[in-house]
């Protein structure tokens, strides 16, 4: 899923303070799961912003709504009947959702309440970690199911570098060395000879380096 976290309240107050009528929109998908922008967080944020406005003596009218999904035109349309009553949308969706509001309602400000961080998952209650860098050409079958692009700080395809110490990355002892993890998996799978294969220079064209990406499924388009 997409993992995000709420921006510091001070930053959100600063970006929303020019507006008197604010539509705060949450999303029921990933950001609900990672407790960043679901119904509950929208409610808390609305209360905090109302309080800040009151303290500053600014009038502020807020409407809260949480959509099923903010990365889908069908759901984004659900705010059309009332969006004209508001000056700006404060999106508690990931940045994909925020951009859907910007695309769909060209005359309305779309403000991000979250920092969209990475594609990953939950490790334990309150802890999430990155697992995919979206390179567009998966190699997990060659690396024991651990991604060197997302999990090595230098995205090395032929690691580990000389900074791997005690299973940790040189960048930070809190980061497990991605290549130690790959090696451990190869050992567990009895596939250590696989390590000897040199992984060639990657074609980054399928990654962000090829420009903004798009998938068209002819079999699904109408």
């Amino acid at each position, binding site marked *: 899923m997409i993992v995000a976290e709420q921006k510091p309240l001070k930053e959100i107050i600063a970006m929303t303070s020019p507006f008197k009528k604010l539509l705060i929109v949450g999303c029921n998908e990933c950001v609900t799961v990672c407790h960043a922008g679901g119904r509950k967080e929208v409610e808390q944020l609305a209360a905090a912003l109302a309080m800040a406005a009151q303290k500053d003596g600014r009038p502020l009218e807020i409407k809260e709504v949480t959509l099923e999904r903010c990365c889908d035109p069908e759901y984004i349309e659900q705010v059309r009947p009332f969006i004209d009553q508001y000056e700006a949308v404060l999106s508690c969706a990931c940045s994909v959702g925020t951009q859907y509001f910007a695309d769909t309602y060209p005359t309305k400000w779309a403000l991000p309440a979250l920092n969209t961080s990475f594609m990953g998952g939950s490790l334990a209650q309150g802890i999430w970690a990155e697992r995919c860098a979206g390179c567009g050409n998966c190699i997990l079958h060659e690396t024991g199911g651990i991604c060197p692009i997302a999990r090595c*700080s*230098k*995205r*090395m*395809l*032929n*690691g*580990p*570098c*000389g*900074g*791997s*110490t*005690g*299973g940790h990355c*040189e*960048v*930070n002892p809190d980061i497990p*060395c991605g*290549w*130690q993890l790959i*090696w451990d998996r190869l050992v567990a799978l009895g596939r250590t000879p696989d*390590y*000897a294969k*040199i*992984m*060639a*220079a990657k074609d*980054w064209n399928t990654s962000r380096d090829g420009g903004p990406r798009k998938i068209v499924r002819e079999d699904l388009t109408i």
Partner: protein
Amino acid sequence: MKTESKLEKILESGQLAVTSEAGPPRGAEPEVIRKKGEMLKAYVDCCNVTDNQTAMVRVCSLASCIILKQMGLSPILQMTARDRNRLAIQADILGAYAFGINTMLCLTGDHQSFGDHPTAANVFDLDSIQMIQGVNKIRQEGTFMGGAKMTLAPKMFIGAAANPFADPFELRVMRLAKKIAAGVDFIQTQCIFNMDKFGKWMQMICDEGLDQKVHILAGITPMKGLGMARYMKNKVPGMDVPDEVINRLKGVPKEKQADEGITMAVEQIQQLKEMKGVHGFHIMAIEWEEKVPEIVERAGLLPRPKVD
């Protein structure tokens, strides 16, 4: 010979090679590079020039190498994948070769978070092994990494680093084998302080027959004092400084510690000269280049061989 490199000629002649390195200054001061070059010229075969080492911005390796080359030294162009994609890597190699620089060291590079621009984006388009592969392709096939033919293809003598002390240890020899398969000609090791572990690594290399396929230069760094030793032990990733090194420095008065550090380096070289698979020494006297002549002399590595 694969190249015109002085280092290749010395190593292929079976003599022990001596390389060192000059860290370029953090200002546009060619005289600093010249001074280091003058200091090292008669004592080493080739001189590495570091490439924004520890991710601190310095005069670029290429420009510094050109200065050293014009002084009559044989520079080794260090190149990291951290700051350059494959276009920039190849452009720099072409530029270097146009100035007669024919030896280089392919490195992935320290992460930029260690340096003075931690907010920078990194590149890491290639890793060191892929860089070696690319440089070897240029040399062997005369083509760019992208496949197009080159008019005059640089024939670089290709070096790389190896850290026998990083983890996981059992991978260290396998990773070196990958560098050899990619086309590396010589290896400069990480600074050696743990002689036992280095000996084990070399033994594994010889057992695999890899010492016949690559020239290994043992990395030697003299300790300036107890403070440096403790810093290296605790703060530098991938560094293995055993307690006996710390204790030996601790055992001498502060003003004598630098001399003791030099003596320890000299003793290390003397021991390593006898070790199978060690084909030379890479002396990294960090911001202490003036001590290299003394180390080389006391270790009995003078005079340096003359090759055409």
